[in-house]
């Protein structure tokens, strides 16, 4: 039986790990290399690492850091941040990364999806959609550039389009729920899940294993990604890397099969 994937998601800014709240106020959380090493030792399902500076600053991805992080992973590793063309994608995959995540460039130059998929296969192409609810009409809207640029596009339509063009996985990231640890935006996930046929991963808002359990309960084999949950502990949000062990994971999955 294919299991749901429980995925720590780490954000990199200035070579250090940070955590945001609603995509703002990045708090320094530590050294990426040691953190990834710990997650590897905890045998996490897979890992997502996003460089949140690269696109905004017009920077190339930090290939050296990517390679160093990839060599720490005995589980699949998805990298995103600063990717603009398929040559970069090829390079990054060649550094030992299983999947690349595209955000703004997938929306601005969607032909990159088809091009890259033809080369590395669509299973390695992930599109991340950062989504916020529009205040004026309560509809969902996709943002890029770290939540700073509104695209005016609907995430459901965009997800379908991205799939059509070559994305093998969609990650839907709720800006409204980011860092609050109050639960996923399940409505948003539902809307997208109904319309696409590729694997879907949900990110933004997970505050407890119960939140993940609830997601799995509703959607079965889905990706449950979280940042704060696996990095912080307790009311003071103290940095402490944590992740459910095999027993706890199996319990979550078994519960959802009732």
């Amino acid at each position, binding site marked *: 039986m294919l299991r749901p994937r429980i995925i720590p998601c780490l954000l990199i800014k200035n070579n250090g790990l940070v955590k945001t709240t609603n995509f703002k106020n990045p708090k*320094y959380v530590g*050294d990426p290399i040691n953190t990834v090493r*710990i997650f590897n030792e905890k045998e996490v399902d897979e890992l997502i690492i996003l460089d949140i500076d690269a696109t905004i600053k017009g920077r190339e991805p930090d290939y050296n850091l990517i390679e160093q992080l990839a060599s720490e992973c005995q589980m699949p590793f998805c990298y995103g941040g600063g990717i603009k063309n398929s040559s970069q994608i090829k390079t990054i995959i060649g550094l030992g990364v299983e999947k690349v995540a595209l955000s703004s460039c997938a929306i601005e130059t969607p032909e990159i999806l088809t091009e890259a998929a033809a080369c590395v296969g669509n299973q390695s192409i992930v599109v991340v959609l950062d989504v916020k609810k529009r205040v004026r009409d309560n509809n969902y809207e996709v943002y890029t550039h770290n939540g700073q640029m509104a695209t005016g596009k609907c995430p459901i339509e965009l997800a379908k389009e991205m799939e059509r063009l070559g994305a093998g996985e969609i990650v839907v990231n709720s800006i409204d729920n980011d860092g609050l640890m109050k639960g996923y935006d399940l409505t948003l996930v539902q809307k997208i899940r109904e319309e696409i046929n590729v694997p879907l991963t949900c990110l933004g808002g997970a505050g407890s294993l119960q939140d993940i359990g609830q997601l799995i309960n509703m959607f079965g084999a889905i990706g449950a990604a979280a940042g704060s949950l696996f990095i912080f502990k307790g009311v003071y949000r103290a940095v402490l890397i944590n992740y459910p062990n095999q027993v706890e994971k199996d319990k979550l999955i078994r519960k959802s099969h009732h």
Partner: protein
Amino acid sequence: MDEPDRFNHLGPRLKHVSKITVKSIKQRSYQICSNCVMDTSDSAITFDDRGWCDYCCNFYENILPNWHPDEQTWKVLSKIVDKIKKVGKGRDHDCLIGMSGGVDSSYVTYLAKEKLGLRPLIFHVDAGWNSQEAVNNIERLVDGLGLDLHTEVIDWSEMKDLQLAFFKAQVPHLDTPQDHAIFASLYNFAAKQGFKYILTGANYSTECVREPIEWHYHASDLRQLQDIHHRFGKVPLKTFPLADIFKYKLYYRYVKGVRVVKPLNFVSYIKANAMQELTDRFGWQKYAHKHYESRFTRFYEGYWLPEKFGYDKRRAHFSSLILTNQKTREEALVEISKSPYDEQTKLKDFEYVAKKLDLTVGELHKIMDGENKTYRDYKSRMPLINMATKVLRIFGKQQAIIR
């Protein structure tokens, strides 16, 4: 006897040991204590006519008479605990516990909450080298005892630069950046947040034989840290927690009223039993050796220090256990003759340390081959510290030998 053979125990780096140490080693032949396993790799060690070292003598003369965990000491501890509770009334927490995930700090946490009924805030310093076991153990205790946690995350780029500076300084005390960050954050936080009591896992049971200064110079000597950073560092220490030894021993203590309590000295603390109790109760994971909750410390104590300087900190750790009847001398001798950890892990750690410090393996080896220096080669507050220690000893406040 052939001179070179006599020094084989010091490892292949003898020729790089600085002049002062070479002189003192050359003047004396190898000797190991007949009661514990400390030896002349502590160049200032002395032996009595039984062949017992000054650590052993000091233990029996000064420490043991004043340290006897029993009902009386439990009463004394209870009184202290009552005071802590009284002073902490109305606050979210009545004390601060520095927690590394190691057995001592884990056990004191357990003791504090479960047996003493205190309401501690657990304070952890993330210096960028946590092992999986360390974070797991902290999590287990925090969850298992329902405690609050605060983590101080040291800026890795500053820590990396400072550690690299210490490597380049060729001194034995490479653990200073980590140690200093840990104690400075803890004390600074306590003073700032108004905590009057810090509980630590320090204990005679496993630490009555302290590592000699030659091996483990005072991490609290800010002057030394700053001098080494000034000479070999590149990144300014903007956020790095700093506290001068006198600031924390005098100002925090006497002006801010921050007191340190060592509960493990008031109870019967048998390390093996403590570890088992933690494992059974919380799913606590054991480490291969003391201090191995940090990957850096494991590498540094298990490989760098013995290989480059000939100092094996296990000698001090095991000797403490021998004196407190938790290990026999025979067992210690057998263990110390073996390497602390296997060849493969050693290599893996060497590569990892190089990677973390942005060095190639070759560059790290080159540093290892450099000429050994001591704390005396850099600015320090040692003269002042020596005087202060003497004063404390006169007032009976310092029993363990620190040299």
